[in-house]
């Protein structure tokens, strides 16, 4: 029996599938999906073709409406989508960035080995859990006034550094040096600021987590060495979080404002969540300035958390930060829109590159890649689902030519959160992870147990929803995702790490 997508998709090669403009009237460019044939079955079931096609309606879109192999059904834009529009006469869409603006990943290295950390892993996980506020409704340890928050929004990571959170070297190895230019706090609503003030310096809930990992496989020794990854068994720390309620409110505000702009500019869209305005319009510029504030909030957030990670390790191992070799490898954002230049029909053009659940992947020698990585390319950090594994890769020239310097961002969901929850209970997930040697501490478990102990809820296990939703079974295999990007050449696989300890909301 022929696969249901035969006759719709045009196979370009084993990892590239085109959705022609004839698929849906109104598409101004074709769609391009990076996936293996095996992955298409999931993608097909998930209405993703429709969403990739809908993005191709955006005025001023160039190249293709792109789908990375971790693509899944979103709202408006698919998650794992990349769309570049002309700055001159194209649009910007807040939905093409998402609610969690500058959700991203930071990776730290240590010179500790698995053998040194395993005996203390419970103690380390407990210490990290105490030091880094996580979970729903959690409040940060940092108290800022609205005036100080405005400084956070303008300065990003540098604000944290000035307050003593982190090292100058951290900023060098952060995308955009931890500060997106053009941030203007006047373009942010007081509601966003109210949501943002108490949440600065918190990990949050949902799919955000912090992992203690061990290097498990190295595919490119020279590149790994350049990143300070010397051998299998070396311990790394991965931080995955974003701009919290601040970013959510900025997106909410601008989806509404740009929804009204759509009518003013006579733009016709197949989905209201694609609300957009010309990049050069006052509305478009206002959004870019507000989005930059949220991006800077997120970098500050990850910078502060980095500091507490260092404090925790120093305490648990009774060694100095220097002796532990606690240095940052890199920090990437995977929900963002950036103004970048690419050749279109042989002519350099300024484009607004929307990456929604996609990671920038610049090659060696690119001016935006820090000097320490100029010979290897920009590190790409790809977290898997909680408790599986994560990958470290590098940007490539192919990504520059085909995907506006972008690659995948994670595993990508294959199951609805509700379905994952029905099939699995939080306690089972925690138990299964512990059986595989992974120690987990989740705020959702701690608080459920406390309430159950006092008889307020009857069964703690039934209340650990948040953890069950993030079970591995709910995700595509990140290995398959990363292998497709590697084989298609849009990023180059360097190393794989597996978790031994997880902190979660």
């Amino acid at each position, binding site marked *: 029996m022929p696969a249901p997508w035969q006759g719709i998709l045009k196979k370009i090669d084993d990892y590239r599938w085109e959705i022609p403009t004839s698929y849906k009237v109104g598409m101004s460019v074709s769609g391009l999906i990076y996936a293996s044939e095996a992955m298409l079955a999931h993608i097909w079931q998930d209405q993703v073709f429709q969403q990739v096609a809908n993005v191709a309606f955006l005025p001023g879109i160039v190249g293709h409406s792109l789908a990375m192999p971790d693509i899944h059904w979103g709202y408006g834009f698919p998650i794992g989508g990349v769309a570049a529009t002309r700055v001159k006469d194209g649009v910007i869409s807040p939905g093409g960035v998402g609610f969690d603006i500058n959700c991203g990943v930071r990776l730290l290295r240590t010179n500790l080995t698995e053998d040194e950390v395993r005996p203390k892993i419970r103690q380390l996980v407990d210490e990290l859990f105490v030091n880094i506020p996580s979970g729903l409704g959690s409040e940060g340890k940092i108290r800022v006034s609205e005036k100080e928050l405005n400084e956070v929004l303008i300065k990003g990571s540098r604000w944290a550094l000035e307050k003593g959170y982190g090292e100058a070297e951290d900023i060098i190895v952060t995308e955009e040096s931890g500060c997106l230019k053009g941030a203007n706090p006047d373009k942010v609503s007081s509601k966003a600021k109210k949501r943002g003030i108490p949440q600065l310096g918190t990990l949050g809930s*949902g799919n955000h987590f912090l992992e203690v990992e061990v290097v498990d496989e190295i595919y490119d020794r020279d590149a790994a060495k350049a990143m300070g990854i010397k051998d299998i068994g070396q311990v790394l720390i991965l931080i995955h979080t974003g701009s919290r*309620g601040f970013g959510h409110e900025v997106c909410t505000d601008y989806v509404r404002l740009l929804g009204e702009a759509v009518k003013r500019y006579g733009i016709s869209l197949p989905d209201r969540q694609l609300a957009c305005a010309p990049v050069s319009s006052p509305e478009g510029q206002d959004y870019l300035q507000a989005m930059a504030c949220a991006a800077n909030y997120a970098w500050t957030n990850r910078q502060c958390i980095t500091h507490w990670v260092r404090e925790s390790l120093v305490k648990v191992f009774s060694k100095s930060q220097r002796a532990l070799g606690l240095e940052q490898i890199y920090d990437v954002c995977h929900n963002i829109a950036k103004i970048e230049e690419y050749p279109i029909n042989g002519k350099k053009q300024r484009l607004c590159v929307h990456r929604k659940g996609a990671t920038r992947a610049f090659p060696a020698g690119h001016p935006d890649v820090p000097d320490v990585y100029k010979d290897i390319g920009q590190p790409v950090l790809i977290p898997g689902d909680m408790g599986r594994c994560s990958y470290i890769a590098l940007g490539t020239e192919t990504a520059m030519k085909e995907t506006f310097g972008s690659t995948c961002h994670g595993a990508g969901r294959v199951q609805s*959160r509700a379905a994952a929850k029905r099939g699995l209970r939080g306690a089972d997930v925690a138990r299964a992870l512990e059986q595989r040697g992974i120690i987990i501490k989740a705020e959702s478990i701690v608080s459920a147990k406390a309430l159950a102990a006092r008889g307020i809820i009857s069964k703690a296990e039934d209340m650990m929803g948040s953890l069950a939703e993030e079970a591995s079974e709910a995700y595509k295999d990140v290995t398959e995702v990363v292998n497709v990007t590697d084989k298609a050449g849009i990023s180059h696989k360097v190393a794989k790490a597996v978790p031994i300890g997880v902190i979660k909301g």
Partner: protein
Amino acid sequence: MEKEFEIVDHTADVGIRAYGTSMNQAFANAAKALFSLITELDNVDEVVYRDIELVAPDQESLLVEWLNELIYIFDAENIIFKRFNITQLNNTRLKARSYGEKVDSSKHKLKIGVKAATYHMLKVDKTNGCQVQVLFDI
């Protein structure tokens, strides 16, 4: 009792469909569905209230803005709402008083975080009773 709301499956997020004999009731049930995703409402008391007044270009937008306003109050003030008295609702205007309680970690177990209500899969339908549908980003 008539069904107040149900959960609609979505790969990454959660949708809800809420019902009512009037649109006021359907909007109130949509809000109840939202807070049922966040916590068990049986453990929430009516201790505080907040008044909300909104203007939007159409009723669909009004639904999204109504739910986003509640998400905002939950996030900024940590209030869980359980009862919603919508006193005015037409195509462009909503007026409501919502009752609930501040989050108390010794009493309330928060289940999931809701980032926002979206315009994707959004429906406001009066053909067969009143029915609304909305997708949340969680």
